């Protein structure tokens, strides 16, 4: 094959057809030397992924930042992280929950230790919240239901904490998970929070961590994971076992679901008068495929 006879990196390739007439076809591109000399193969390129190409978010939190550390020490979750409060969680639904939602609530309460499920019989949230605070609840979870499946989650940290409204999707109950293990035990699980990097994601991550008691019981070997990928938070609940120091086996128990943050509100749940720290605005925020906020 001729080398660069056009002098611009265009290569001629010989094609032989069945009738043995030879055709010359010009292929453009870099001279394909590596076909002849495999030792000079170009280094393997790093494939571009959405995570690689992600638009850099200025609000990415650097963990060593003083300001961030100071914020964390003084925000609403500080009492939890200083181990002053023990989480106590109230799980409830919207009016008239149907079978799937009810079962999901029950399973969620087995996963989260020290949680109680109460059914709402037409009570207003604004009236429930002061009662909860009076009874020392630290968090309130409301699961919204649409056409018999849960589709929304409102998580409110109670003594004046922020309220996060999530859209919930792909809910799988325990019996729908393949190869699942036995029921989750009463031990407190560990918590894994992945990829909560930005200024918005950090408090959301801390809020999710506040649901679980601070010191996990390693005997139980259970782990609850909140993994954030491209603004979707995946929740999984596993039991793990270390087979060697380099291998661990995990077995999924417990329900699984995905959350997508819709809005974050300072203060407890108040749809009319609350001040919103962040709302998902579709027209502004969904313009780029590579821009994520959490």
């Amino acid at each position, binding site marked *: 094959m001729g080398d660069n006879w056009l002098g611009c990196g265009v290569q001629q390739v010989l094609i032989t057809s069945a009738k043995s007439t030879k055709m010359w076809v010009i292929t453009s591109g870099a001279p394909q030397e590596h076909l002849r000399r495999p030792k000079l193969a170009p280094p393997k390129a790093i494939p571009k992924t959405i995570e690689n190409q992600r638009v850099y978010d200025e609000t990415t939190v650097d963990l060593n930042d003083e300001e961030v550390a100071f914020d964390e020490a003084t925000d609403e979750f500080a009492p939890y992280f200083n181990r002053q409060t023990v989480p106590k969680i109230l799980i409830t639904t919207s009016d008239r929950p149907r079978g799937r939602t009810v079962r999901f609530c029950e399973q969620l309460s087995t996963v989260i230790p020290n949680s109680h499920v109460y059914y709402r019989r037409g009570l207003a949230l604004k009236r429930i919240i002061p009662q909860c605070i009076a009874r020392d609840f630290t968090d309130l979870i409301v699961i919204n239901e649409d056409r018999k499946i849960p589709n929304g989650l409102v998580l409110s940290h109670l003594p004046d904490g922020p309220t996060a409204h999530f859209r919930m999707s792909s809910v799988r109950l325990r019996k729908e998970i393949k190869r699942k293990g036995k029921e989750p035990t009463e031990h407190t699980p560990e918590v894994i929070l992945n990829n909560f990097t930005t200024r918005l994601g950090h408090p959301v991550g801390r809020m999710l961590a506040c649901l679980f008691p601070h010191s996990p019981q390693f005997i139980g070997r259970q782990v609850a994971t909140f993994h954030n990928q491209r*603004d*979707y938070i995946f929740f999984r609940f596993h039991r*793990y076992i270390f*087979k060697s*120091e380099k291998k661990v086996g*995990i077995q999924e128990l417990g329900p699984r679901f*995905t959350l997508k943050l819709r809005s974050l509100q300072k203060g407890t749940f108040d749809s009319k008068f609350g001040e919103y720290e962040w709302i998902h605005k579709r027209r502004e925020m969904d313009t780029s495929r590579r821009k994520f906020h959490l």
Partner: protein
Amino acid sequence: MHSDDVIWDTLGNRQFCSYKITTKTQNFCRNEYNLTGLCNRSSCPLANSQYATVREEKGRCYLYMKTIERAAFPRRLWERVLLSKNYEKALEEIDENLIYWPRFIRHKCKQRFTKITQYLIRIRKLTLKRQRKLVPLRRKIERREKRREEKALIAAQLDNAIEKELLERLKQDTYGDIYNFPIHAFDKALQQQEAESESESDAEKEEEEDEEDMDKREFVEAEDSDLSDFEDMDKLETSSEEEQEEEEEVEKKASRSKAKGKTPLKGPARRKRPYIEIEYEKETEPATKTKAA
């Protein structure tokens, strides 16, 4: 008055009335001025020239009356009286206006008025309670979100991420003394020594080693299933010849695994993937195998 009978005879009984709805058990009248809603001789507003109803508009109740004198003037046919908001007063007003009217119409008017006030009260009570707000879903957006979620799930590689995190925590000694992996401590010490002794000139070698490790790891993960078949094949082939050696190896593996963890293995339910450990051992032991063969 006799024309009423004629009207009823034609419309009500025999011919077509556009307000009439027939069902299996009953006939209903759709006329908006009808007092009871049923199609009867006494309830038909067309067939009675002296008639009264109660209707509500925007939360206020009115009494409508029709008399024979105005039968020729359809525009002025129905006379309307606003009833008081007070329930008892309104009943008295009905009685006042319908004095000397047939008992049936008076009674039915009051009944209808009672029903209307009851449902108005209920409306007002319900609007104070929480309303269910229906938010329309947008199909395109739902589809888009769903697809993005699926892709994010694939990109997340949750199992790997969780395992990595757990191993990290094990390395950082968050579990304390629960898991006794003596080899792990030894490896750590080795690594520390290596890191101290080697200088920057060896950085390239380290990179290469890392790359090789990466390549090894890639190799391993991609060809998991092949290797499992491979090892099964190996077992089959060498079973006849090298049974003893295999048994020894298996025993060694078993003993090692027992020594490594105080936590018991939970049998077949635990194994999600074929043992990659065997693959590592083969890399170091093919010499022995070939020697034996």
